[in-house]
Each structure stands twice: as structure tokens, then as C-alpha cells.
């Protein structure tokens, strides 16, 4: 059990030792990739439980909270803690500092299941929010993070704001300043203002800014960009250009101006106009944002839905300051309750362990802070160098403050320990040395964002607690623990680029073939052998998705099996098609909708079929008549036939939940068998369908989407596939090559890692492209586009596309190691760059045994500051002279080797064909089997047997309705007797049976029965009270007369009554149940016989009593005979084999008639056997 749980060593052990020496304090661990951060946290968490348990705490898990960010990371915490507990228990050599029995380990593992505080930070906050949602005006706990519902809600809020005349002017100004995209063929257009407002709302909340503070931030940016206000003269303007760029750019600008006679050049007026319009836009933006935000909050409360970010925001707001200031707080909300909730969670966070702590946002920090007191023991582990989520509100500088100054959660910690962990248990020394060489320069280079957000200390490895200092940013080398190999661990697949721009598809076209060859060669010739001896899979990392398909095609062509693990579910044709079908099903008989469906891009029907639709004027019912194929064939024609069937089932779709409708689409169209050739891999196809259905079921919950709602939700995801799930990869191990984005790979590792398509310019997507900019502590709205932004062109026109950037906004232009622009914008661009370099760091540090880099032999002089490949080539001394084989690259910033061996195109390029897929394809990926289930009744009783066996088709429906034929009473009119009025015959039948059988059961005398004296009136009265309907007095009287004058005297003369008087055993209303086998099926029967008796000879007799006031027709008679005989047959099953049963049918009513009966025509067994033919 303890396998895979290494004991803590070095800094890991130091952290643990210090942690348990204190009862409270702040412990901050900054550590390198492969340090064993999670191992450390898990063992400390496990030991925390053990110690509390040993101290007699009944619920040790209730004092421990361990959180991380991603769901995957969080899901591994609990198993990690359990594995540590097992390792402690299994340890016989004192390897671990904890000694517990397996029984204790087992008990603590089960206690851990009682905790809700091991998981994601979002899940922790969600449980806290549950306690305060109602205080904040929510009607109970809202649903959290349902992005489809939120997107619809946000749209409605925006529409409401747009419709409100109060905001019309502001909205118009903003629409002019930031014009919306025009609808194109592929998009319906985008409400750009809405996107800006929504982004602003979330960013404002993540930073916990009031509207005033938010506005100040936006205005501060204007002041930063116009340090002296709008320019009065060209000279003013040129001063700014010189300050933001340099003198030469300023003189270029000056030279380009033509000054009219006596006035200012137009550029000055334009720049003034920009200033004023920008300020006006900020006014308008804040006004509209305020309205939008209020509408959003109201809608969230109305609809009971919030995002994860909202939760953090609301918790922080609720616990911060006077309750009365919290927006939306309910009347009667009290400080006492707030204190109670605070105490609840403070108790639960006594030991708080946070993984990936560099990723915490301000709102999350502030939401957790109320529950952290000076009595809390907090352990934060993270790595600033791996922070790649600043764009998503991570605030690594807060982690730095905690590390360096011991300030976090609003507390100046008296006990503060900080640790730097440099050991890496993951990568081979050569990879570590290469990373040191590359990032020793990068992380200390201001031009590449070095120093921003980084720790400011340079410390020796594993030095234990350190004190903060103000030293300049440095780089701490990795300290690998694994041994090296003689074979290269660093590989370069070199390629000769074309004249295209780096990062473009054209450029990658030149890269993909050598890279494909290299990977194919490395996989087949043993170059990529890994230490664990497993079949190696190469993980290829990309920073973006654009060129993944190109490389996939290349590799597939070389016989490798490739899977893209970062593909998005709603980006696949199969899923898009399903979404289109749902949209169509809203009104499948509308020809224009049918046309839109069959001509959609994701379908690509054959010309013949398209002609068929056109000829039928896109009327699905007309098309259906023309189709030869039937539903169920996994062909294009089968799909069309399936569509026609789906249209006909519109009624069912109205009542079915969304998930069932989509299931039906998949089944009817046989999409799991890929009739339209959309996803070749059957397992992936199944997984795509699974994932889509899972998503819909999750969103829908217990609700019931209408088709229109479902269609709207799905189209939202098709428009924004990133909001949906990834397309799952089943059975990753079976592939040779797996593609992933670097972000997706964070927290993971692999034996062989390759970085591909890394040639693009880092600033290509930088802040200069943003309209609403939010990065780190900067928030800004770009200057309006309706006024000139004064682009500063390179006057030499050496590179015709080169711009320095717009004067008053962010740029990607580097001057003297800094990015041009106003101080704040320059810093934002640097922060953006810094994150790009950290992304590279994350990519390279995923590799355990082999790191493959795809690099150009020459790079058209791309600057190292702006290009990953240039930096990598320079650091590894790779250039156009490098020839296939291997070379020694000198290394720096690393204490150990002087050089590492780098393999360059050092594989034999085979005519590769991969292993091939040995596993049989899943049957569920084929067309479904024909229906194998028919209908055989599961429950049969004596009254239903006849009809079910004789006329199953006719009897089926009423049988399914639970209606059993009523054969206790025949005839509703009598020639001689006045029948009771006002009661249904079947009720009368039940009642009479009840009275007569009770009379037998109570041993009533024959005289009493004949004369209807007590106890018979009481029995009648009791029986009447047991009827499920009220019987009025006059009806009661007529029933009484009927019984006393006719039925009871008749019964007294019957053989049944005589038999009952003489029987040695007598049971009335006797249950007769059994389970019978029909063919190979079991059928259940439950019956009640009126009377079972045993006479003095030991003969068993069943009596069945019927009321008849008209002649009993032959069919009913057969039915009643079979019923009685069936009871006898069931009774025989219960008796010893030598016993037989006499079955007798007695009619009362017009006259008394008793006959011994047997089953009509054939035996009971044969009647029963007939059921199998239903």
C-alpha cells in the first residue's frame, strides 16, 4: 500500500518538522517543478489527522482543510492523504516519522470521507456560501458555475440595459467608440459592448473594487498615458512620444507632420479629441456597467444561479465591514449569525493547506481570510515561476509577500517560515541543466519580464527557512536527484524554415515534416526509451491550438496513432451536428430550418441527397416519403430517415428531458457508428457522445429544458466551445502521440515531452490587442476607436507591417530592453511577457526522461526577447551550423555539469507504421443490435390470465394501465330482484365478497346468515367503511336489503357454506402467490382465493364465488373457470406432490349454482405457457 509514497527528505522534511513544532503560524514553500509539493502536503495533512486523533479529537478531519485549484489536482489530494496513512501503517523500518496501526489508518481514511474541505478552493467556498446565500437575498443555495445558464442570464441583463432609455445615450456612445463586429457568414455577430461589460464586471469583482475604485483605475490609466493632460501643442505630444518611446521615434513622428499655416497639426487635435472622448467613454462605461452589474445580481437571485467567482466575491463582501453596507443583504440579517458562520469555518480551517498558492486571486484570498485567525496553522505551497494564470486573476505577488514578509490573510504572522525547494525528483540532470541554462538568463532578464511577480531572493538550495531580503531578482538552480544517462535527454528536431512569418501556418508547414519524422523515428528506434520501461507515449505541447491538426495529419500519415487531448467537445463536427439537430427539432416542419440543417457545414451531405431536399422544398415529411433507407442504418441515407422519424416524434420531445432527446438523436441517427464520417476513432466517438450527454444532464439536473431552451444553450457552447468540456480521450496509453496545450498539462508530467510550434512572437496576442485590459493590478479601457489612435509607423518602411504601436495604448515594441509605452502600459506588457516565459518554463519542466524541441536552423534574426525558439536556440548553442548527430552544449546557472549532450535529428527516419490498435473496436461503436426485447407480462393473476393468454395484443394496453378485468360480478339488471342503485357493480361485487367471506371467517351461524341478524349488519357496516368511496345512506339501505333478502339466504343454501361449516381447515381471502417459469422467464402471480378448505378426508377445495344476474356468456364463463382452476394449480404448487385440489365455482344472484371446474380446453400449465408467446 505504501508504494509510491516516498518519505519526506531535505526541505520537505524541514517543512514538516517546523510545521508540527508550532500550533499556529504561516509556512510558505516555494518550490521547483518535481519537488514533491503534493507529496509533502499530503503527508503533512495525513500526519495532522494522526496527531489530532492521538490527542483524542473525535473528528480530526473537521479541523483540516486542504485545497488546490484545478479539479484534477484537488481530486488527487484525498487519495494522496489516504496513501500516506497506509504508508505510515505499513512502515516497519521507521522510514516515516509516524507510527500507526493499519486499523487506525483505515479508521482515519473513513473519517476523511466525512470532510467537505478536501478539494478545490471553489468547492470550499461553495460550502461556505451555502450558509450565507439566504442572508444575501438568494432563495436558498443557487446553482454554481452553470455557464450556459449564466450566459443566457447575462444576455437578458444586457438586453434589459440596452432597452432602458436611461442608458441609451451612454450605450450609443460606447457602441460608436467600440463598434460591434459585423455579422458574417459564420457568426451572428457579437455584442462587443456586452463582452466588454461582462469582462469588466468579472475583473472588477475578482479585484474587489467598488465602482468608484474601478472608475479611478480607468482614469488613472488615462492620466498615465497623458501625463500632462491633452497636448496643447505638437511639442507636448512629441514629449510624450519621446518619453514613451525614444527620441528617434519622436523625431520620426515630427517629420511626418505637415503643419497647416498657423494652426496645430491635425495630430494634436486628434490626440486632444482622443483624450476627451476617452474620458467620456469611461463615464459612459461606468454608468452602464453599474446598471449591468445590478441587473446581473438581481437576475442571479431571481434565477438562483451564480458563478464560482461570484461566490468568492459575495463571501468576501459579506464578511467585510458593516452588514448594512452589503448589497442585497436581507432584512433581519444579524452580526450574530455572521459571527456564527465565521466561527464554524474558522474551526474547520484550523489546519489550512493550500497547494498552487501562487494562483489565488484577490477575491479568493479575501473570501478565505475571515476564517484564518492567528490561531490557524497555514501551509501554502506554490511556485511563482510556474504561475501561468495571471490573466485569470492569479496574484503571485501576494504569494511573494507571504513568502518574504510573512503577511497574508490580513495577518502579520508572528510565526513565519519560508522555504525554497530546489530539488527535483522528476527530471534527468541534463534536462534540469538545460532548463537552468535557459531560465537562468530569462528570469533575470528585465526585457523578458524577469523580476516581475518573482521572488526577490536568491538562496542556496534546500537551505531551510530564510529571511526576506530586498535582493534583486535571481535564479535558483534546480537540483536534480535522478542519475544521468550517456544517451542524450535533450533532443532537437531541426527544420529549415521558409520565408513566412514565424507562428504562421505557412511557417509550421515547414516545421511539421521534420518534427513528424523525428517523433516517428524516436518512437521506433529506441531513442525515446524511458526508465520505467513502459511503452512510451510522446506528449507534444503547444501554446495554442491553431496548428495542431497539421501536425496530427503529418503524424497519422506516418503511421502513428495521435490524439489531441486538448480538443474541445463543441469544436467537433459530431457534436456540432447534434446541436444543429436539436435546433432543428424545435420546429422540424419549418422548411427554412430543414434547409439550414442539411446545408450546415458540419454535415456535408451528398449532392443527391441535397437535390432530394431541394426538390421536396425542404419539407421533411415529403423527403421522408422519398427515402428508401430506414432508420437504424449507419449511412447518410439512414441519418436522413432518422431525421424524418425524429420529426414525427415531436410530441415525445415536448415531454422528454433534454438529455433524453439528445440520446434519441444519437440513437435514431446511429451517430455512435459514425454514419457521416465525423470521428473515425470509435472510442473517441463514444466518449464524445458520453461527454455531451453528461454535460446536458449536469446542466439540466431535475429541471426540464424545452427544446427551444436546449437549442439556445447548445448554440451558446457551439459559439464558445471553450466554455464547454474538453473532448475526452479514453485510454490515452494506446496512442503513440498525445497533443496537449501547455496550460492543460500544468501539474502533470510525462516521460517524453516535445514542444512544438513555438516560433511565434510572444507579443502577438499581448495587451495591445485588448479593449478592456485587466492584468495583475492594472485595469484599463482602451481609447475609443472612433477617434484616431495615432499609429506610429516605422518611417523607413523596411518592414512594411511594422508599427511601433498606437501612441496612447499598449504596444509590443521593444526599446532598450523594455516594451515601449506609458509606465503602466509598459509594465503590463512586461507582466504579460513574463507570463509567456513562465509558460515556456512549465512546458519544458514537464519532461522526465526526454525533452524534444522543434527548432529552426535559422530564425531570420528574431530577437531572443520576443521568441521562444530564438531563446532556446541561443541557450543551447543551436544554430544553422548544427548538423545531425549530437553535440555538447555548454550550460550556465547550474552548479553541476559544464555541458549537456544535445541530440540533433539523431534518429533513424523509418517508413514508420505504428503499432496498430490491437484492441477490438467496441461493439457500441457499431450500429446498434436490433431490438432483442419483446413483451411478456411480468405479473399475471387469475383474472387477467385468460385475456393475456388468449388475446395479448388486445389486453396489453389495459394491462399496462394496471386495469384487471372485473369478473366477480355479471349483469347490472335483474328480472326478479331489485339491485342496489348508486354503487358501481364492481364495487358491489367486492363488497359482497367481503361480507360473505367475513361471515365464514367469523364463524357466523347459518341462522344469522339467513336472517341477517348480528353480526351480519356490523360486518356489512365494516365492509362498507373499507370501500374507497363514500356510499350514501340510501344506497347502504338498498345494499342491505339486497344482501339480507337475496344473497345471504342464497349463500346459506350453497355447497360453499356447507363445506365451510364442515371443514377441518378453513381460510378465506387466502393469498395464493407464486413465481412461475414461462420459457426462461419468471412471471409473478399474486391472487386471493375466496375460500380454501380441507375436508375430513384431507381433500383440499378451492371455492370461488361470483355474482350473476344475467346469463354468463361463454367467454366470461371460461375466464372464471380458468381463474378458479388457476388458483387450484397455484395451491397445488404449495402442497406436497401427492395432494390434489378440487376447484369449484359458485354463482349467486339469480340462483345458486355450484360446479366443479377445470381449466377450459387445455391445462392451466398450457395456459400459463402461452404467456411466453405474447
Amino acid at each position, binding site marked *: 500500500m505504501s508504494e509510491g509514497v516516498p518519505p519526506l527528505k531535505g526541505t520537505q522534511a524541514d517543512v514538516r518538522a517546523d510545521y508540527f513544532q508550532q500550533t499556529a503560524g504561516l509556512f510558505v514553500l516555494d518550490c521547483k517543478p518535481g519537488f514533491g509539493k503534493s507529496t509533502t502536503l499530503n503527508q503533512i495533512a495525513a500526519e495532522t489527522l494522526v496527531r489530532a486523533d492521538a490527542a483524542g479529537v473525535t473528528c480530526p478531519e473537521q479541523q483540516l482543510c486542504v485545497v488546490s485549484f484545478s479539479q484534477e489536482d484537488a481530486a488527487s489530494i484525498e487519495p494522496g492523504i489516504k496513501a500516506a496513512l497506509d504508508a505510515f501503517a505499513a512502515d516497519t523500518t521507521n522510514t516515516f516519522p509516524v507510527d500507526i496501526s493499519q486499523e487506525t489508518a483505515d479508521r482515519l481514511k473513513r473519517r476523511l470521507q466525512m470532510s467537505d474541505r478536501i478539494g478545490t478552493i471553489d468547492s470550499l467556498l461553495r460550502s461556505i456560501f451555502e450558509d450565507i446565500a*439566504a442572508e444575501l437575498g438568494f432563495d436558498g443555495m443557487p446553482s454554481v458555475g452553470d455557464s450556459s445558464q449564466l450566459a443566457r442570464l447575462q444576455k437578458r441583463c444586457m438586453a434589459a440595459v440596452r432597452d432602458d432609455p436611461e442608458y441609451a445615450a451612454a450605450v450609443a456612445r460606447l457602441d460608436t467608440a467600440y463598434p460591434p463586429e459585423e455579422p458574417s457568414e459564420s457568426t451572428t455577430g457579437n455584442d462587443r459592448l456586452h463582452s466588454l461589460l461582462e469582462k469588466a464586471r468579472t475583473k472588477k469583482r475578482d479585484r474587489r473594487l467598488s465602482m468608484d475604485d474601478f472608475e479611478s483605475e480607468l482614469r488613472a490609466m488615462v492620466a498615465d498615458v497623458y501625463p500632462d493632460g491633452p497636448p496643447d501643442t505638437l511639442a507636448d505630444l512629441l514629449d510624450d512620444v519621446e518619453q514613451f518611446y525614444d527620441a528617434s521615434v519622436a523625431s520620426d513622428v515630427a517629420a511626418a507632420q505637415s503643419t497647416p499655416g498657423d494652426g496645430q497639426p491635425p495630430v494634436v487635435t486628434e490626440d486632444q479629441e482622443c483624450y476627451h472622448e476617452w474620458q467620456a467613454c469611461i463615464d459612459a462605461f461606468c454608468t452602464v456597467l453599474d446598471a449591468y452589474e445590478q441587473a446581473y445580481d438581481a437576475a442571479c437571485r431571481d434565477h438562483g444561479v451564480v458563478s464560482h467567482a461570484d461566490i468568492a466575491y459575495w463571501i468576501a463582501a459579506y464578511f467585510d465591514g458593516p452588514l448594512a453596507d452589503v448589497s442585497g443583504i436581507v432584512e433581519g440579517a444579524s452580526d450574530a*449569525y455572521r459571527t456564527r458562520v465565521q466561527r464554524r469555518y474558522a474551526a474547520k480551517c484550523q489546519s489550512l493547506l493550500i497547494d498552487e498558492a501562487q494562483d489565488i486571486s484577490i477575491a479568493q484570498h479575501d473570501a478565505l481570510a475571515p476564517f484564518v485567525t492567528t490561531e490557524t496553522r497555514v501551509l501554502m505551497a506554490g511556485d511563482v515561476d510556474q504561475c501561468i494564470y495571471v490573466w485569470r486573476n492569479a496574484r503571485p505577488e501576494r504569494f511573494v509577500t507571504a513568502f518574504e514578509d510573512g503577511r497574508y490573510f490580513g495577518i502579520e504572522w508572528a510565526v513565519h517560515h519560508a522555504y525554497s525547494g530546489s530539488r527535483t525528483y522528476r527530471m534527468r540532470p541534463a534536462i534540469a541543466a538545460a532548463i537552468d541554462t535557459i531560465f537562468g538568463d530569462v528570469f533575470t532578464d528585465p526585457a523578458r519580464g524577469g523580476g516581475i511577480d518573482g521572488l526577490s531572493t536568491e538562496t542556496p538550495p534546500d537551505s531551510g527557512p530564510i529571511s526576506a531580503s530586498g535582493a534583486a531578482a535571481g535564479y535558483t538552480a534546480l537540483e536534480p536527484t535522478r542519475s544521468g544517462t550517456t544517451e542524450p535527454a535533450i533532443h532537437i528536431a531541426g527544420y529549415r524554415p521558409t520565408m513566412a512569418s514565424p507562428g504562421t501556418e505557412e511557417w509550421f508547414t515547414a516545421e511539421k515534416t521534420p518534427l513528424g519524422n523525428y517523433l516517428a523515428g524516436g518512437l521506433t528506434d529506441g531513442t525515446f526509451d524511458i526508465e520505467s520501461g513502459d511503452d512510451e507515449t510522446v506528449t507534444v505541447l503547444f501554446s495554442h491550438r491553431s496548428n495542431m491538426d497539421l501536425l496530427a495529419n503529418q503524424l497519422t500519415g506516418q503511421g502513428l496513432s495521435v490524439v489531441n487531448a486538448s480538443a474541445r467537445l463543441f469544436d467537433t463536427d459530431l457534436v456540432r451536428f447534434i446541436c444543429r439537430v436539436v435546433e432543428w427539432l424545435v420546429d422540424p416542419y419549418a422548411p427554412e430550418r430543414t434547409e439550414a440543417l442539411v446545408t450546415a457545414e458540419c454535415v456535408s451531405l451528398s449532392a443527391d441527397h441535397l437535390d432530394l431536399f431541394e426538390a421536396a422544398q425542404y419539407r421533411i415529411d415529403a423527403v421522408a416519403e422519398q427515402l428508401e433507407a430506414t432508420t437504424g442504418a449507419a449511412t447518410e441515407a439512414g441519418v436522413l430517415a432518422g431525421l424524418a422519424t425524429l420529426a414525427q416524434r415531436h410530441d415525445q420531445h415536448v415531454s422528454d428531458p433534454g438529455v433524453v432527446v439528445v440520446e434519441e438523436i444519437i440513437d435514431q441517427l446511429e451517430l455512435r457508428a459514425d454514419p457521416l464520417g465525423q470521428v473515425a476513432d470509435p472510442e473517441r466517438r463514444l466518449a464524445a457522445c458520453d461527454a455531451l*450527454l453528461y454535460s446536458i444532464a449536469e446542466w439540466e439536473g431535475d429541471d426540464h429544458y424545452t427544446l427551444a431552451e436546449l437549442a439556445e444553450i447548445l448554440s451558446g457552447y457551439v459559439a464558445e466551445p471553450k466554455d464547454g468540456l474538453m473532448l475526452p480521450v479514453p485510454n490515452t496509453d494506446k496512442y503513440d502521440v498525445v497533443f496537449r496545450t501547455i496550460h492543460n498539462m500544468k501539474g502533470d508530467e510525462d516521460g517524453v515531452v516535445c514542444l512544438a510550434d513555438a516560433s511565434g512572437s510572444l507579443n502577438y496576442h499581448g495587451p495591445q490587442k485588448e479593449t478592456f485590459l485587466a492584468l495583475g493590478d492594472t485595469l484599463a479601457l482602451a481609447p475609443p476607436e472612433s477617434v484616431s489612435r495615432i499609429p506610429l509607423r516605422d518611417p523607413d518602411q523596411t518592414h512594411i507591417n511594422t508599427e511601433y504601436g498606437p501612441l496612447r495604448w499598449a504596444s509590443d515594441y521593444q526599446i532598450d530592453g523594455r516594451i515601449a509605452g506609458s509606465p503602466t502600459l509598459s509594465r503590463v506588457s512586461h507582466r504579460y511577457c513574463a507570463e509567456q516565459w513562465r509558460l515556456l518554463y512549465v512546458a519544458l519542466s514537464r519532461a522526465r526522461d526526454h525533452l524534444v524541441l522543434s527548432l529552426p536552423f535559422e530564425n531570420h534574426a528574431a530577437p531572443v526577447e520576443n521568441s521562444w525558439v530564438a531563446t532556446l536556440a541561443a541557450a543551447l548553442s543551436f544554430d544553422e551550423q548544427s548538423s545531425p548527430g549530437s553535440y555538447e552544449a555548454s550550460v550556465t546557472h547550474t552548479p553541476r555539469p559544464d555541458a549537456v549532450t544535445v541530440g540533433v535529428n539523431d534518429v533513424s527516419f523509418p517508413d514508420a507504421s505504428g503499432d496498430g490498435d490491437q484492441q477490438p473496436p467496441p461493439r*457500441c461503436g457499431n450500429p446498434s443490435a436490433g431490438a432483442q426485447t419483446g413483451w411478456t407480462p411480468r405479473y399475471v393473476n387469475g383474472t387477467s390470465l385468460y385475456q393475456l393468454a388468449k388475446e395479448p395484443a388486445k389486453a396489453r394496453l389495459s394491462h399496462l394501465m394496471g386495469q384487471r378485468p372485473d369478473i366477480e360480478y355479471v349483469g347490472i339488471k335483474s328480472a326478479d330482484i331489485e339491485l342496489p342503485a348508486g354503487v358501481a357493480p364492481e364495487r358491489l361485487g367486492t363488497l359482497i365478497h367481503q361480507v360473505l367471506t367475513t361471515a365464514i371467517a367469523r364463524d357466523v351461524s347459518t341462522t344469522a346468515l339467513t336472517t341477517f341478524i348480528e353480526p351480519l349488519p356490523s360486518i356489512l357496516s365494516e365492509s362498507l367503511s373499507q370501500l374507497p368511496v363514500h356510499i350514501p345512506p340510501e344506497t347502504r339501505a338498498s345494499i342491505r336489503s339486497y344482501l339480507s333478502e337475496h344473497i345471504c339466504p342464497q349463500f346459506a343454501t350453497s355447497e360453499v357454506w356447507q363445506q365451510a361449516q364442515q371443514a377441518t381447515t378453513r381460510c378465506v381471502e387466502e393469498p395464493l402467490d407464486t413465481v412461475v417459469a414461462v420459457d426462461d422467464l419468471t412471471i409473478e402471480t399474486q391472487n386471493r382465493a375466496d375460500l380454501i378448505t380441507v375436508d375430513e378426508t384431507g381433500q383440499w377445495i378451492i371455492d370461488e364465488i361470483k355474482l350473476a344476474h344475467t346469463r354468463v356468456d361463454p367467454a366470461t364463463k371460461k375466464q372464471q373457470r380458468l381463474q378458479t382452476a388457476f388458483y387450484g394449480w397455484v395451491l397445488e404448487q404449495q402442497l406436497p406432490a401427492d395432494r390434489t385440489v378440487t376447484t369449484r365455482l359458485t354463482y349467486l344472484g339469480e340462483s345458486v349454482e355450484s360446479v366443479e371446474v377445470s381449466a377450459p380446453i387445455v391445462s392451466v400449465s398450457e395456459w400459463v405457457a402461452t404467456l411466453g408467446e405474447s
Partner: protein
Amino acid sequence: MSTQLTSNPPIQLENVYICAEDELVERAERAPQPTDIVLAPEQFHRRNFKRAIAEANRPRSSLALQTPATVAQELVRAGQGTAPTVLDRTDRLRLIEEIVEEPPGEVAHLQRVFGASLPTQLARIEAAREELSLLTGYQSARLSAFERVCANVDSVARLDAQDLRTGITSLQEHLRSQSDAYVSPATLLEAAQTLVEESNGDIWQERYPTVERLNVVGVSTLGTPLLALLAALGEETAVTVHLYLRAATGPRIANRLHSRIDSTMNSTAASNDSPPGSPASAATQASSAAISRPQVADAVTTPATEIVAETRAEEARAALAAAEGLLDAGVSVSDIVFAARDIDRYERPLTRAATAYGRQLSVWTQLELTRTLPYQLVAATSSLLAARSDDAVTAETLFRPLECHWLPPDTQDGHGQPPALLTPAELSTLRRALGEEDAGTLDAWRDTLATTASVDASVRTRFEEYLTWCDQQPHDPTPADILSVFTPIMETFEETVLPGIEQRDTAAYAETSRAARALQRIAGDAEGEHLLREVRAKYRGWQNRHQVAASWETIRELLDTIGTARPGRREHDNAECIDVLDATDTWLRSYPFVIALGCVDGEWPQQPHGAFPVAVRTAVAQGDSPAARSLAVRGAWTEQREYDHAVDAFRTATRHLIVTRYTEDVEGVSYQRSPLLADIAPTTLDDDAYHRLLGPATTLPDRIRHSIPPSKTAHLEEMREPHAQ
């Protein structure tokens, strides 16, 4: 409570059995009057018990199967002369809501636990009310004991628990004083107990003169109100009380039985580790250590195979493949069952997988009534009538009943497709012709129709007929209107639409069955659990008691409330379907092949839960103090109940147990193996065998194939063997 433990305690430990219900089946005999009452709170347990007797071909008139509430009701009826009424959950919630709107007296303590807006917390308040009832029966001695337990837990949990206790106790008093009916079945049990005690048992003798034994079966929780009634019966009457308990909760219940009956008698507490199949008394000498892990292994008497799939959907396909392999090899569908801790989570994935294999399942969950066509028709019609009264008839509201097959009452039978007033194509054309502008009133829609020339004359006539029908319905419906308006619609549906659904259905008639069951649930003709009648009763009651408005809107809300709260019967009347059961429903069942799904930690066992703080729940469950041992433990509070379910499911198998699990969800989050499997050591299917099983040939692993009996009906024969006469 008045019961004093004498030398003969009211419930004797030798009458407590763990996993030994077979003994009770053996008591089933033919008798003129029942000699035993079998108390099973759950309907499915009563069903299974009957089934076990039927499979054994035994008579059963000696046993009367009842719920504790029914017996209490009978006793109260006998004592008071009239049938008692008990608030149902909907009424109770409504009353609680009224009380907590402005919480009186100590009810206000609940605001310290739940915050200011108590009406938003009704479900949690009711859960706490019910838990406290189970624990203490609101008896002062037990409430004090609970108080003592709370006093010993950590600060904030203590405060929460104490405030809950105070607030809920006070709420219960208010409920009692504000309602003429019994607050809950538990208060009915309490009333029955009082009657038994006050009459020195005569009331029992009068009502159940022939009954000698009272047998409680199928419980994971023995709540205080039930225990008090049983103890009173044991004390005051000649009846003996026998408890047939379950594998894991059983020993615990036995363990504290006497301390609960009389907290001064802890020393006689039974032990907690009786092996399945033996009376608990056999182990009374054993130590009283808390149960760490029940011996699940004892429940498994067959070979066991574990199948590990990647995702839940894949697991469902693997489970179906295993079933298909068995069926291919000649095993009967009646001999296979799928079981899961919570089959709701597996219903869709299993159904999809079954479709791929051409199989139909019989999933024993309650019919989701609100997701059926007949329900949607009633709901859509009432929405339309409500919208008509508010002059807010949108196109969606107007056309929806027609999409659900609204038909005028005298429509003739249809054939093939279910008939419609307007065909889907006509409806589509009409709707587009009239436009999506919301006309508001029916008259406005009529005007729009009149001015829309493109509408076909026949369509126009039929649509006008529909509008006229709408116009003719009352605006302020009386309770009687509920039946008079909806019954004809449902009758037409039954006579006309349902045959059409049957016509187009597959050979398994699943869709027909679903619609038929829904119709029966909505508009069956007997009193009781039929939606329209229940709505009528509640509408009438609420109008009298709570002054709700007479409107179709109110009726629509009631339809939803009742339709969701009590969804409908579970029977699936098709013997050719493979059964899918919640694990708890496998109690006492027997199938040769059991495929138990979801053996994943956190899913089975599920995380324990409850309304009181974990620390308090743990203190009560661990029973470290006499006070704690005098209280009941709610089943959901500990994992023991999960083990009960597992043992029930595992011991259902007579030939082979297949356990399955998944390792990750579609988002890539990983899941761990269930600790339930730790004891039973199943053989894991290797990768190759796994892929062959799921492959095109559905190759059944030899290991499982070897368990197949030679005869198809061996199952039934096997079951009867021990009982054959």
C-alpha cells in the same frame, strides 16, 4: 416513557437477528388469522418479502405485512373510534413555513443556525425536525440526553446543535398546537404507544387478537418513536418483538437496544460484531468496541469478478456487455440484475448502453411523472388557462397543449401515429402564420387568426374549436373543476392517443407503458394516490386553511408540487426486461447473476450526511457516553448503512457476483476503488478480456461462463430447494 426493564426486557436480545430473514420466511404458513405482523417501513421491502415467500411456494396467511404507521393508525383508530389524519410532507412544509415567517419564541433560535430567512431553509429545518424525532421522539429524557451529548462537543458545533435542538423542539410544539392532524407518522406512533400503555395493552388485544409476534424488518434506523411503541407492546402485551436487522447497522442497533430502552441498563448491551446469519445474542459476550469494518466477505458466497472501466458511461457499457455475454450463453433475463447504490446515476448510461445491445431495462425507480406526456398535457393546459385569466397568452403557452395532444373530448380512436387536433406540420405552419408576437388574450389570438388569410380553412375551424374550449372553462376554478376539466382530457388521451403510442412503439412497449403508468397515476379512478384527486383535495384544504387564491396558477403549482413529491409507481410490467435495482431494494432478493455498479469510494459508500453537525453525529453514533447510547442513530449518519446495502446486493447473487467501477469522470477527475471491495477480493478482469468483452463478439470471460448453470430455470429450482414440501 413508562417502560421499565424487568427481568424480561420488552425486546429480548435473543429475538434480534442479523441477516437472518430466511428464518422469518420459514414462518410463513397458512392460517385463518395472522399470527405475525411483519413491519417493513419500505414498500419495496414488503414486496420483496412477499416475493421470497412466493418463490419458496409457501402460503403466507400467517403473516400480515404492514408499515409501522399503518399499525399505529389502526391502534389509534381503535382507541379513538375514527381514522386519524396525518400531515403529509407538503402540508407540513407549508405549516412550518407559516410558523417560521415570524418565528415565535424559541423557534427563533433557528435563525442562529440558518440565518434570518428561515422560509428559504424549509427543507433543512424539516430534515432536522425529522432527525430529532428519530433520535429522541421529543421525549424530555432523551432531549436531555441529547443536550448532554451536545455539551461535550467542540464550541461552535455545540452551539449549532443546541440552537437546533431548542428551535426544533419549539417548532414541533407549535406544529402540534397548530394542526388538528398528527404532525407526522412519528407522532402517530407516539399516540399509539400512549394508547397501548394507558390501556395496559388491551387496545392491541382488541385490534390484533391473534397476533403473537411482531417482526421488524428492513430497517437501517430504529427511530425512537418506533422503538418506544415496540417496547410498550413488549411490556404491556403478550406479543413478542423480533428485530431482523441488517448487516452493519444491525449490530449497532442491537448494541444499544437496552441502553435506549432504559439508559440505566448499559451493562447488558449486546456486542456489535455478530456475524451475518446469527442471532445477535450469540455474540453478547464479545467486546463492545465500535464497528470498524463489517465483514462484507461473509455475504459473498459466489465467485466475484471486478470490471474496471474508465468512465461511468463506459462502465455501463461494460456492465451491459457482461449481461449480453450471459444472455448469449443462454442465461435468462430473469436471472440477471444490475444493482447500484443509487441507480438514478446509472439509469441513463445503462439505458443508452442497453439500447446499443438491443435490450430493454426495467429500472426500478419511481416514474418521473412530470416528464411524461400526459402530465405535460395537464400542466400545459392549466398553464394556458392560467395565462388566459391573466391575459398573458403567449404563442408558446397557446400551442403547447396542442403539441402534447390536446384533443376535444369526443375524438375517435387513432391509428399509427397518435392523432392530433392539428398535425405537427399543420401546427408548425399555423404557428408561423400567426407569428410569434404574443397576442395576450384569447380574443386577440382569435382576431389574429381571423386576419391571417393564409390559414387553411380546416385548420382554422379546428383551431377555433380549441379556442372556444379554452373560453368555456371557468376563470376561478373550484376544487370540483379540477376533475371536470382535466378528466375528459385524460380520458380522450387514454382512448385516442395511447393506442397511437402503442402502435408506433417497439416490441417492448416501453413508451406505452410509461404513458399508461402516468395516466393511471394522474387520473386513475380510485381514491388515493391519483394526482388530480390529490390536487383537488389539497386545493380544497389550502383554500380553507391558508387562503390561497382560486386560480389555475395555484392548481398548476400544486400539480408540480405533488407531481414532483410523489412521482408514481415503480412497476414495469415486462418480464423480458433486465432488472435494475437500487442496492437497498435487492434486500432478500435472489438472482444468479448480480452486476453491482459504482463500486467507487464516495459513490458507494456515499458520504454520510445529516442535519446536525458532524461532531454531534459522530458523538451519538460512537455512543461513548450513556447519554449517547440512549439515542437512536440515523442510518444516513454513518457508512454502516452503505455496508448494509452492499451486503444486500452482494448476497443477492447465487452464481456469480460482478462488481464494476469507473476510474475517472469525463472531466478527467479520478475516483478511487470502493473500500467495500477490500474484503471480497474479486478477480479483476484483465485488459485483454475487458476489450474482448466490449468488442464486437461480446466474449464472456471463462471465469464468468463457468458459473452458468446447465438449466435455464435453475434459478427458480435452486430457490425452491430448501423450502420444497
